[in-house]
């Protein structure tokens, strides 16, 4: 029974690691589409600060949590995350969503000009240079 449990556990862990490695490799080599990941789709800017901070917060939080797991002494329980980190993570996502919400309603509510949404797209800008 021990052999069976060991085989099953390593089998599933191996599959997960291989899947993660394939996804990571394909993203780095751009075989997975990453065009416009940080782009402001409403305003046409190449980089959106809200997206950059959320990307950094997500990667930072993921790395920090993996570190907590590997350093955890209690193997019968996933390590707890400090509430401050959780609040910061929630705030980061809120900023991203509020930015997106503003982009959705800025023009209809008269907070931004309709021309903002018609700015040159990044590729067009490169062609104009």
């Amino acid at each position, binding site marked *: 029974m021990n052999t069976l449990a060991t085989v099953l556990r390593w089998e599933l862990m191996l599959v997960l690691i291989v899947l993660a490695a394939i996804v990571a490799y394909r993203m780095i080599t751009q075989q997975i589409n990453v065009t416009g990941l*940080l782009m402001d789709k409403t305003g046409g800017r190449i980089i959106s600060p809200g997206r950059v901070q959320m990307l950094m917060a997500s990667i930072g939080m993921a790395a920090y949590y993996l570190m907590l797991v590997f350093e955890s002494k209690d193997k019968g329980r996933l390590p707890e995350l400090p509430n401050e980190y959780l609040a910061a993570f929630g705030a980061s996502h809120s900023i991203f969503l509020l930015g997106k919400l503003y982009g959705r309603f800025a023009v209809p509510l008269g907070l931004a000009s309709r021309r903002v949404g018609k700015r040159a797209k990044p590729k067009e800008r490169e062609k104009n240079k």
Partner: protein
Amino acid sequence: MSAATIGLVIGWILTVFIGVLAAMIVIKIFNGDIDLNYIISDENGWASLSRFQFLIFTFVVAMSLFYLILTAAPPKYPEIPNQILALLGISGGSYVVSKGIQTSRDVGMTEEGHPPEVKDPKVTNTPVVGDGGQVQGQNPQNPQNVP
């Protein structure tokens, strides 16, 4: 045959089945038969940050669980604290809200006569089935595209 032996046999059958299934999926992904090109893209073909962070946290929590199950002796499913549920809730909730806002924006822009910019989709191995059940890009007289 005792109940323990039957349990062991069923366990090995399931282990081999899951292993073969997982290997087939990985091989198909590797060969490009399962297309991951748009795994983090939205409907317009642009990469989506909310999908990306959702993918990251799915992998992180799954790996953490399997790591703890692997290292615990005797093996047992670890307890999940409320903070982790909150973390996944923020991640998943952000994805859902973001998708709602984007859909609302796309519908609004289309109704105003300014449809959102659609990035040209790349050619993939995965066939897209049209309204009539017909695979797009294929000749109805020759569905296998045999020359």
